[in-house]
């Protein structure tokens, strides 16, 4: 096992190198460069002055030279500074943005699962009941509603319509409270106030993000449960006199969860990607917006750091999946 993991990690090195070449090339080959706007805004810039600006921004060199310069520094742990923020790109991604993204995506994932599994099972158990039809209808509404539409409609409902019509408290327009645990430590806010603020701001974006997964996972759970409940071994269990509750929730439920586990596993990398649309609608400063902003503003160091992190994550999650398969299925041997 150890040798297998070491070998896979060594194999990942050229893969990541290749990924970094491709990512850097794609980022650098975008039309235009960071100086286009600056040059356009000052008609008085001379050729020499523009050349000096290009040198200062490292844009006077061909792409491959710039890449190897970047690589040389990156392998020493220096990922450069953000062009537009001045702060180290590493700090911006891993200190400022990734934790925010994980808060939003993990809570959304947990809530989606917490709702989808019991509702899916209930819907299967009460197949063709009114409730089943209702769940099916809601699920179809859920996964056919675009995220941007749902987000805006929720905002309109909870920021404009309900407060105006019924005098309810107005929900915050932004999904991010702008506070950190450091504020609790410095006494700026109490711990309960901290959690209260976060919860209050996160309600709408979390609902928006989880609604879509909730809808599809409910359907998956329902069909998976229905498939399992009609298997021979379930019938055998029943014929042996096992109680219906035990049959459903001990035998059927566990087996029907396997496809859901696969689905959830596949969605794990997306926890780190961020959710661009939800983040944008609710002005939530996460990874998705960081990546898009860095690309549109041609902030190469930030874009490279974020995208390469996602590449590393993909490689590692593949490795993890292979290891877990082995643990789950004893027929798989590492060699």
């Amino acid at each position: 096992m150890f040798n297998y993991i070491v070998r896979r990690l060594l194999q990942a090195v050229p893969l990541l190198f290749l990924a970094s070449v491709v990512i850097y090339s794609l980022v650098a080959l975008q039309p235009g460069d960071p100086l286009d706007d600056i040059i356009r805004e000052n008609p008085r810039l001379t050729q020499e002055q523009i050349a000096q600006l290009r040198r200062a921004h490292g844009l006077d060199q061909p792409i491959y030279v710039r890449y190897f310069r970047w690589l040389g520094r990156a392998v020493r742990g220096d990922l450069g500074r953000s062009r537009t923020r001045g702060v180290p790109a590493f700090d911006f991604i891993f200190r400022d943005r990734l934790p925010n993204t994980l808060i939003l995506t993990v809570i959304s994932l947990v809530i989606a699962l917490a709702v989808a599994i019991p509702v899916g099972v209930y819907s299967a158990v009460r197949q063709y009941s009114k409730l089943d039809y209702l769940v099916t209808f809601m699920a179809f509404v859920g996964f056919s509603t675009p995220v941007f539409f749902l987000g805006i409609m929720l905002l309109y409902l909870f920021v404009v319509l309900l407060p105006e019509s019924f005098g309810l408290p107005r929900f915050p327009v932004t999904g991010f409270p702008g506070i950190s645990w450091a504020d609790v430590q410095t006494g700026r806010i109490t711990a309960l106030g901290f959690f209260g603020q976060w919860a209050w701001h996160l309600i709408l974006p979390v609902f928006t993000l989880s609604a879509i997964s909730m809808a599809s996972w409910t359907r998956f759970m329902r069909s998976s449960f229905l498939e399992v409940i009609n298997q021979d071994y379930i019938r055998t269990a029943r014929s042996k006199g096992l109680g219906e509750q035990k049959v459903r929730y001990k035998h059927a439920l566990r087996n029907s969860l396997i496809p859901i586990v696969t689905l959830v596993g596949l969605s794990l990398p997306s926890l780190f990607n961020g959710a661009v649309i939800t983040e944008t609608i609710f002005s939530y400063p996460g990874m998705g917006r960081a990546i898009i902003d860095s690309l549109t503003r041609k902030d190469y160091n930030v874009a490279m750091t974020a995208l390469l992190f996602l590449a590393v994550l993909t490689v590692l999650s593949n490795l993890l999946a292979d290891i877990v398969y082995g643990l789950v299925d004893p027929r798989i041997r590492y060699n």
Partner: protein
Amino acid sequence: MRKVIGFLLVSVLTSLAWAGPGDNSLIVATSQEPPVVMGDFLNILNNQAIKAEMQVYLFTGIYRVDIGGNNVPGVVTEVATEENGRLRFEDIGDGEQRLEIDLTLRDDVYWSDGTPITTDDVAFYFEVGKAPGMPTLAPDYWERIDLAVQDDRNFTVTFEPAQYVDLIGAPISYAPAHVMREEWDETLAAVEALDLETEADRVEELYRGFFSEFASPSAINAGRMVYSGAFQIDRWNTGSSLVMSRNPNFFNHPENQDAYAQRVEYQFIEDTNSLLVAVIGGAVDATSAVGITFDAAISPQVARRAEGRFNLWFVPTAIWEHLDINKFENVQTVADLGLADIRTRQAILHALDRQGLVDELFDGLQPVSHTWVNPQHPFYYEDVPQYEHNPERARELLAEMGWEPGADGILEREVDGRTVRFELEFVTTAGAAPRERAQQFMADDLRQVGIDVNINNAPSGVVFSGEYFSRAYEGSWTGMFMFAWISSFQESGDLWACDFIPTPENNFTGQNIGNWCNEEFDAIREQALITFDLEQVAQDFEELQTIWANELPALPLYFRSTPYAVRQGLVNYVANTYVNGNGYPPVEPELVGWSQNGAEMVYDQADYALEFD
């Protein structure tokens, strides 16, 4: 458990802090969050509009630009003029002059930490701007400027050779030496150990690091920066809001300052639809210059809710939408269509119903332009030749050039034995809905006179890249290109200078991208540049605009207006085209407040804006 839930509920409800007149605060919504503010005083890291707007509250310049676009003293005792003996000119030959400007800092100006603002701060700003390898955005300015400090209060700024633009706005700025000096000395020492030529990118990175130490959210929240404006930053909640409170050491608070807003909060709501919800839901008191879109502002959803709650103002800006025309005759299409011929451009402009366009698409709230100079600018010439919508005249002009309608109504003519159809490429930024709608409108107008339009839009990243934008010579675009220039407060006519035509000889440098060179225009422009009697310069600009309008190197369309939603009762939250130099509100931040709380209206937005019915 109930107690915990109750506490959480109270926490939540207190977070809904009663905004606006209730707590004498102002909440401004903006769709952009600046990555940095204040410490990046040379705009090396960022020069976004929102950064400049927020700094109106936080920093008082050497001069301020008032609501009428005039220089007024900021932290200095008076604006330098020849009458008060603070402006001196000296002939340095070749018709050029040296300009010396004597200035005196007020003796009651302080940074927010109570440290006096002195000439050391001016000298520090100067030293950083002049530092080796500093990638400033305006190197020509730094090449011409010099500074002499007499004492703590008095200093002299010298420009050599001087230009009249040196008299528009403040000649120099300042930065807090007492908080930034130590870090700067370390940065400079590190820079001096590097080779400026071969390690220019490392030098630039060191400078960026220096500025971010005083401009990033963490630096601001750590209290590393000080302020000289009416407000200071209390807290920057990145991704959410930036909160300012009154700067206790500001020299110019109104006497009854408690009647005015004590707290200003910028809320960052990136998605324009969400921002619209915040406005109509009453979650904010006003929108920033970088706030709601024009389309959103004139939407029925907003208009329906505006009555009795907030005013919608449309303030004309210096952003000038126009059609640039490729006039490089080495490009076959340009030569075939005769785009370098003045008559063609005049015909196209006669064919366009610009007033109809702004009435139809923008409810008449974006004024039609007749020249590149903004009507609010002191150099604007009111009697500049204008081209009314006259399709018949357009057809006549085109007929003079040999164009005749073909079988399908599209104009044709013989060129070098070939039959050429008048098919005109029309480029603009894809995804910019107002431009694309205007483009369709104009394409229809042009078809009425027999000009077929070939729309060829691309994302802004593509059309504004150097390989496209500046390469009309190579035919990267061959017809009309719709985009905007800023009609600068420091207007110099450089956009149309013969020296700034991008060609292979100058490695495609310059903004005169369509290739227009008029020697008379150039001579007047160059002479005006070294004339320091601004009335004379204004007269020169009359001539410049007349020549320009006669020859139409570009086709003027309209000046964009910025929409503002302002809650009723909020006073002095007023913008104008050139107020504060860039047009961003408020004209005097210390006077923003609520009439309900006794704030007195000094400036009325109605005097400077169009109101939406």
